[in-house]
Structure formats: structure tokens, C-alpha cells
């Protein structure tokens, strides 16, 4: 039987089966994409004259990286950086402390339904709101300064850490947790002995990662007046002082790199 099919197949072309089986869906998707791209490109107005002028400025900016100016606004940069670091550290600590109970509450396997829903709502809200938007509102409410930035970053950290922590708790090893429960432990003892040892390494890793993110974010909060290095950076762009801007960007890049390196080491150690 198979040889007859072989005869039938010999001499016929072979074509790779398409990823999307139905031809209608396939052509509709391709056509839709093309139409979208045409419309999208047409709706973008590019002033090429302005762009070509800008290229000269862009080149000046890039060459500024060769001679960054750390000194002429040295105190501004230093104060801004210190403020960024302070916001980062404080908000990460507070974020972790608050996200632990919320993370426990957002894990379906240990929290009762009402608590679960409340915690999940907090998580969803915090994740859906962009940091900058939160920062704007906080600045409007609490006034300019690092407090607004600190609250913003703490709020953002809560969403991030709680969600990942909850997911981690949801797929931990049930047998270990059950064994502790079987000893007749109280709820807190159960969390302490059955859950905590399992999620701790990952929590530490995630916290380090969040520290890194918070620092990066703290660098932009200044743009809306929420403290940190961003304000200094904004000013230097406004005044076309590219060498100062380059210096600030270099500092940010090196800090992020070293933070990443550090967190890599710590994560490798705890896991």
C-alpha cells in the first residue's frame, strides 16, 4: 500500500506545510499587516529637514561621550546621584517588606479567596500604572522632592515582587509544606518552616533584580519632579550641555552594570 502512495508522491513537489493552516486566515493576516503598515507609516510625520539638522547635533552628543564633563556641574550630579541611590534603597526595602504579606495573600494555595482577590487587585493596579504616571500623581499630592519618588518606586516594587513571589509560592513543592502542616504547626510556623525556606533564594534574587530596576527608574523620575538624577539630566539636555549629559548617562550605565554584576553574584550564591 505504501509503495502505491510512494509512486503517487514521486515527481510531485514538496512544500512545507504552512504555519497557519487555513489559507483565508493566512491571507487575511498578511493583508491586514500590510494595510496596517501602510497606514501606520503614512500617519508618522517625519520632518526630514529637522532630522538631518539633528544628525549634526546627534553626532555632537555621541562625540561628547569621548569627553564627558563630570566637573562643571559636579555638585548637581553628586547630589542627584545620592538622591537617586537613597530613593532606590529606601523604596526597595519598603517594597520588599510590604510585598511579602501581599505576595502571601496573592498565592491561591495559601490565602482564602477574599484576601486573594484584594491582594491580586493591588498587584494588578500597581503593575498596570506606569511609574511615571504614578510619580506625576504623587508629585501633585505630596509636592516636589524625593518623597514622591520614594512612594512611587515602593508602589511599583510591590506589584512586581508580590506577583512573582505569589507565582513562586503557587508552584512550590506541596509535599514539604504538607509535612510541616502534619506536625501540627500553627499558620505562622507553617509559613516559616514549610514555605519560607523554599521561596527565600528566589525572593533574594528578585529583590536584587528589583533594586536594579528601581535605580534605573529613579533616574527618570526627576523629569516629573520626583527627585533624583533625572532632574539634573533634564536640565543638561535643555541647555544643550551634552558633555554633562554624557557624564550622567555614563554614571548611570556603570552603576547599572555594577549592580547587575553584583546581583548576579548574590543570586548565584543563594541558589
Amino acid at each position, binding site marked *: 500500500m505504501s509503495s502505491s502512495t510512494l509512486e503517487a508522491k514521486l515527481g510531485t513537489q514538496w512544500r512545507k*506545510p504552512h504555519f497557519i493552516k487555513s489559507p483565508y486566515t493566512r491571507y487575511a493576516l498578511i493583508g491586514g499587516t500590510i494595510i496596517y503598515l501602510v497606514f501606520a507609516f503614512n500617519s508618522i510625520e517625519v520632518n526630514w529637514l529637522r532630522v538631518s539638522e539633528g544628525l549634526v547635533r546627534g553626532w555632537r552628543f555621541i562625540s561628547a561621550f569621548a569627553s564627558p564633563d563630570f566637573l562643571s556641574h559636579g555638585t548637581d550630579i553628586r547630589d542627584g546621584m545620592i538622591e537617586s541611590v537613597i530613593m532606590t534603597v529606601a523604596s526597595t526595602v519598603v517594597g520588599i517588606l510590604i510585598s511579602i504579606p501581599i505576595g502571601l495573600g496573592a498565592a491561591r494555595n495559601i490565602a482564602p479567596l477574599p484576601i486573594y482577590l484584594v491582594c491580586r487587585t493591588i498587584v494588578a493596579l500597581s503593575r498596570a500604572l506606569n511609574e511615571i504616571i504614578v510619580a506625576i500623581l504623587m508629585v501633585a499630592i505630596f509636592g516636589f522632592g524625593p518623597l514622591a519618588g520614594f512612594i512611587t518606586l515602593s508602589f511599583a516594587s510591590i506589584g512586581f515582587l508580590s506577583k512573582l513571589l505569589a507565582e513562586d509560592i503557587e508552584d512550590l513543592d506541596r509535599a514539604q509544606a504538607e509535612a510541616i502542616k502534619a506536625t501540627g504547626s500553627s499558620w505562622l510556623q507553617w509559613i516559616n518552616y514549610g514555605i519560607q525556606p523554599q521561596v527565600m533564594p528566589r525572593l533574594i534574587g528578585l529583590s536584587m533584580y528589583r533594586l536594579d530596576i528601581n535605580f534605573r527608574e529613579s533616574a527618570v523620575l526627576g523629569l516629573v519632579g520626583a527627585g533624583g538624577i533625572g532632574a539634573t539630566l533634564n536640565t543638561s539636555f535643555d541647555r544643550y550641555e551634552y558633555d554633562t549629559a554624557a557624564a550622567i548617562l555614563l554614571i548611570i550605565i556603570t552603576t547599572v552594570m555594577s549592580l547587575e554584576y553584583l546581583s548576579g553574584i548574590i543570586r548565584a550564591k543563594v541558589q
Partner: protein
Amino acid sequence: MLKLEKLTKTYATGDKALCAVDLEVPNGQVLALIGPSGAGKSTLIRCVNRLVEPTSGKVLLGGEDITSLGSSALRRARRNMGMIFQEYALVERLTVMENVLSGRLGFVGFWRSFLRKFPQSDVDEAFRLLDRVGLLEMANKRADELSGGQRQRVGIARALIQNPELLLVDEPTASLDPKTSRQIMRLICELCEERKLAAIINIHDVALAQMFVQRIVGMKKGELQFDGSPDLLTPDVLTRIYGEEDWKATITKVEEEVE
């Protein structure tokens, strides 16, 4: 004819995988390479088509020294050597047909292969081979949908579509169950017979090797320990290759099964 002359491989870690190995494989001969893990069997096979770069020595295929070839000449030489792998090494997310046709990559240009427009003769040959290994119906399945034995058949078809002079077979049955192992070994040996192919088969299952091949080479710590027909494989020899163990059971069991 394949000829290895003083083939030596020392890894960067200092491990001596091959120590001046001399070996000749005449045209059309199927040879089984046995020996404990770490004896250098895999390295030997991979040095032949230079997936592993030998440290010194020569590999002569039909009189041509493969070790001295430049990269494009090496690719042409590799077309003459089909390889079958331990864990099948199919490209899992490609279809069975693409996997088989990938054996022709050395013969077609980049754009043809990129657009999957292989010559009709290649496509026909792929269909014939798939039919021969019993997987014609599976041509449009993705490779990761197949069972282990089926995957290895695709691997065999991929090696054979190159129309090679020599098959390099690396532990073809290591991840298969005993029954499938035999079927695969039988298939490889039959195909070698049909196409008058020479083959080097790495295999750790001594009984299986004895069952199917005319010549067995034993290796230990990068050196050849034994070279002869399967019935010369006595407990003494096995002790020399693998170390002290009661080998009688292994050998007698095979004799019973062969009869």
C-alpha cells in the same frame, strides 16, 4: 576506503582521547567500535569528519587527506560521510521532510535551501528513503512529534540522502528500548549492504554488535585493544577492553539469540 594514520586528539583540558590510532576500513565494510564510556569512540568518529579537530595524524578517505582540507573542501568531503547520532539530533521544530532534505544542504545553494526549493530529484529521493524506513506518511509531521525509533529512522534517512561512501554512526541505539534497538541496527546494516556502504558504528551494547557486524574493534583509553571478527570476542578480550567482570553470560546469551 577510510584510513586513519596515527590519529591523535588531546583536548584543551589535557585529556588524551585518542593516542595514535591506526585503522583501516575497506569499502563496504561495516565495523562496530566497542569500549567503555570515555574510551574515545565518539571522538574517533567526530575526528573523521572533523566535528572535532584532531590534534595530529591523518584521516584518508579514498586517498584524500581530510585533516588538511580548507573549510569549503571540508564541506565537500563531509557530503561523502553520512552521520547518525545518539540522541537522533533531528532539528526538532522542522518537519520530517525538512530534516531528511537537510542531508542535501551541502549540494544546494543558500537561497534554494532557505526557500526550501530543493531539486525534484532530491525530493523524490527523500520520498523513496522515507518509504524505505517506513515513514512516508509522516513527511509533514514535525520531528518532535515522533517516537524515539521513528526519529532515528529519520536520522538514518538524512544520512543516506547524502549518498555517502561512509556512514559514521554514534551510539544509534543508546536511547532506544531493546526491540527498537535491534530494528534500528538491522535497518542500518541492511541499508549498508544494499548500498555497499562502509560504516563505523559506535556501540556500547556488545551483544548487539556481535549480532549484526562482521568486524569488531575494541577501544580503551584512546587505544585500539582488539580488532577481529565477532566470534573472536572471548571473555579475556572483553576483560581487556572493559575490565574484570563475568562476561560468559553476555556472550552465551548472544549465541542463543543468533541461532
